[in-house]
């Protein structure tokens, strides 16, 4: 277990050609890690995410990827992922190999990977055209009922997962609240895990509420504390989604040149996440802070 900074964690965990899962379903997307991958100039990555979101649009525009495994490639609530589309439709800046599922198909693959299973069955894909275009989606006979056909998908074990949580202790035991998406499955499926958090807390904070600990030190290799590291996505209770950024990307990404100019300014033009936040400015970040709404504390009991 190493508590470190993002540049060191990324440099230590990721190699060119790796498959990488930046986890988080709309919530807790590790944008800072994505920007660090771009700054360090990674190549030929296989990007894996249920929703590629802006973070993979940016990695694709930067030329870091040659394959994408995904289940919904849009700008959530806004429209298209234009850089992703440009790569698929026009091969700009390079062509992408696609490995496509539904959300349940992809998250089932991760769950199989997390449990070291050879495959998992699911009630999805029959009647659709996905089995015709993806050889990983297969139909087998139910071993307990030969009259039934069952769809199966194989495990997915990314080389690296970057997962984000609100808080963790220095060992990498993490508390998450709000939407969890597929982050737990990604963390347990991947070979190497970078855990990035809004704040590091004392071990006693984690132990006071063990049911909220969704990722434990058992699977975490690097711990990075980086406030606002999920911007422009959000962290429940810490800051809201910066919707202006999602709308602005829709404009910026209408041309490849526009995306490159944006990357020059906001990724290559800053040294690290701290400079990115300084460039955004305190006023903009303050506007994203929610009012407080605390849960009712539970009593775990103190037993003698």
């Amino acid at each position: 277990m190493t508590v470190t900074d993002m540049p060191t964690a990324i440099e230590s965990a990721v190699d060119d050609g790796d498959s990488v899962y930046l986890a988080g379903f709309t919530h807790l997307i590790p944008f800072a890690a994505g920007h660090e991958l771009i700054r360090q100039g990674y190549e030929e990555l296989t990007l894996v995410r249920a929703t590629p979101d802006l973070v993979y649009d940016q990695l694709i525009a930067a030329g870091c990827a040659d394959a994408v495994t995904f289940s919904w490639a849009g700008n959530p609530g806004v429209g298209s992922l234009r850089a992703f589309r440009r790569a698929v439709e026009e091969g700009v800046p390079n062509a992408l190999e696609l490995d496509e599922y539904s959300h349940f198909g992809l998250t089932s693959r991760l769950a199989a990977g997390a449990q070291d299973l050879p495959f998992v069955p699911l009630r999805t894909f029959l009647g659709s055209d996905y089995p015709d275009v993806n050889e990983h989606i297969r139909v087998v006979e139910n071993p307990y009922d030969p009259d039934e056909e069952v769809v199966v998908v194989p495990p997915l074990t990314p080389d690296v997962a970057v997962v984000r949580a609100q808080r963790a202790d220095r060992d990498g035991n993490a508390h998450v609240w709000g939407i969890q998406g597929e982050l737990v499955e990604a963390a347990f499926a991947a070979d190497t895990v970078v855990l990035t958090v809004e704040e590091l807390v004392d071990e006693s904070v984690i132990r006071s509420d063990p049911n909220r600990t969704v990722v434990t030190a058992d699977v975490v290799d690097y711990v990075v504390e980086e406030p606002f590291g999920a911007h422009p996505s959000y962290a429940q209770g810490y800051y809201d989604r910066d919707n202006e950024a999602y709308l602005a990307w829709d404009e910026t990404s209408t041309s490849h040149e526009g995306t490159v100019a944006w990357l020059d300014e906001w990724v290559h033009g800053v040294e690290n996440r701290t400079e990115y936040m300084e460039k955004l400015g305190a006023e903009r970040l303050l506007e994203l802070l929610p009012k407080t709404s605390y849960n009712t504390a539970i009593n775990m009991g103190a037993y003698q």
Partner: protein
Amino acid sequence: MTNDADAEGTEATDYTDTELMIARAARELTDDDTVLVGVGVPNIACNLAKRTGASGLEMVYESGTVGSDPSRLPLSIGDPVLASNARSVVPMVQGFGYYLQAGRIDVGFLGGAQIDKHGSLNSTVIGDYDDPDVRLPGSGGACEIASNVERTLVITPHSRRRFPEEVDFVTSPGYVDGREGREALGLRGGPEAVITDMAVMAFDEAGEMYVTSVHPGVDREAVQAATGWELQFADDLAETTPPTAEELRLIREELDPDGVYTGGE
């Protein structure tokens, strides 16, 4: 043509196509339903239903929020307001597995770039899969929603391009090979209603789409002209009930006050 006007509310005359579609979709939902909601127009329809007769409607989102009670219009299906004050928030594999796949969701909203005569939807590619003319976002949760809920509802603009006889790619299966074909695949339920800016459609015994009502000011020839196959019409074809004044007030003042999804027409 008959008018199936609702006696409870005052019918409005000044409304947009989107407002009509939202109000009409809301009437498909009942007090006992659990619905898998999509963001945007379906979300407004579900919240409208909760305020107009389906107060017990349970809203589940594919991000894993169960019994959501959003305090503002969600910007995406992963918006924090879907988690705050929800009854439960579960990992996606559990939401899709324990709730959807296990048959605990009654209704699902789906959309797509194309829908065909058997209610199959395409949200994946226009053209050839390996060399698409247009790359669309893909399934998201649509394929499993289409396969596992009892009733799917579709809200979509009506045009020849969007209503081909066969979709380019089946992302979300409808009555593939008819109702029997769908059942033979082990898929639950199926498409229930398609609500467009021109008409409302249902599915017959064979699983083929037919028109049950056309909207005020729209004639059947116009609906046929905007559809890529020979469309059937109900013998008792009706005129779609317009939104009531109260429904419009709720949409405009409470559910989408900034007109994010209902403005700009």
